[in-house]
């Protein structure tokens, strides 16, 4: 028979091992942080770029031409995906905080992930449209 001390030690080890298992919830949480940091970074760059509106039509249109090249449009799809993930998982977090979402958090994740894919597809249409204009025919 093992001693009580040894028993609790083993149980504690099991519990701490459990805490580091990856679940849908912990995965969603880490991704929420990463996308959040990326979006903050984007916000700062966005303000810096868009401030050139004060330089008048020539300056602004030159900047806009650079940030709407195919490479940037490609990144823009990534941006849309990042925003969508953060926004919809944010909705999930708000629902969890109201209490209702706690029991449904896992299901909510998949429902909202599905919604994200749908909105991403809709959102990609105008971006592809712009791409099409740069490669006529």
């Amino acid at each position: 028979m093992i001693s009580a001390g040894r028993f609790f030690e083993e149980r504690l080890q099991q519990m701490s091992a459990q805490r580091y298992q990856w679940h849908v919830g912990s995965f969603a949480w880490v991704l929420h942080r990463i996308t959040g940091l990326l979006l903050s970074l984007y916000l700062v760059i966005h303000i810096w770029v868009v401030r050139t509106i004060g330089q008048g039509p020539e300056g602004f249109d030159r900047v806009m031409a650079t940030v709407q090249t195919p490479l940037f449009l490609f990144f823009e799809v990534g941006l849309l995906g990042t925003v969508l993930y953060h926004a919809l998982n944010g909705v999930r977090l708000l629902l969890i905080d109201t209490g209702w979402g706690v029991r449904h958090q896992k299901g909510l994740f998949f429902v909202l992930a599905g919604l994200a894919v749908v909105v991403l597809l809709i959102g990609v249409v105008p971006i592809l449209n712009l791409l099409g204009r740069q490669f006529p025919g």
Partner: protein
Amino acid sequence: MAFVDARRPGGILLWFLQRLTAAGLLILLLTHFYFLHYFQEGFVTYRKVAVRLASPYWKIFDILFLTLAIFHGFNGFQTVVLEYVHREKLQRMLLILLWTVALVFFMIGVYSIAVFTIQS
């Protein structure tokens, strides 16, 4: 564990404001996307943005959007710093740096929107 003042970093007020701004940003962001990328066809150009930004209502909208976005973004950043940086001096320095950057970009943004008039 020491009690945290509701208004201090890590307090309940900032936690609540993070959720409040999240809800606000959902509506503002949807409006922003709709008018900038759906309602308007083709590339973003000076003419398209200028017509919209000349309206005082859009100026108010954009300044509100900017305020919520900066607060939400940097408050989120602050949470990450509070959770991963535990050395007190370094933590305080990072928070000061963080909110200074936030304030600078907030002012650049507000200035760009507020003083805007159409040039041709």
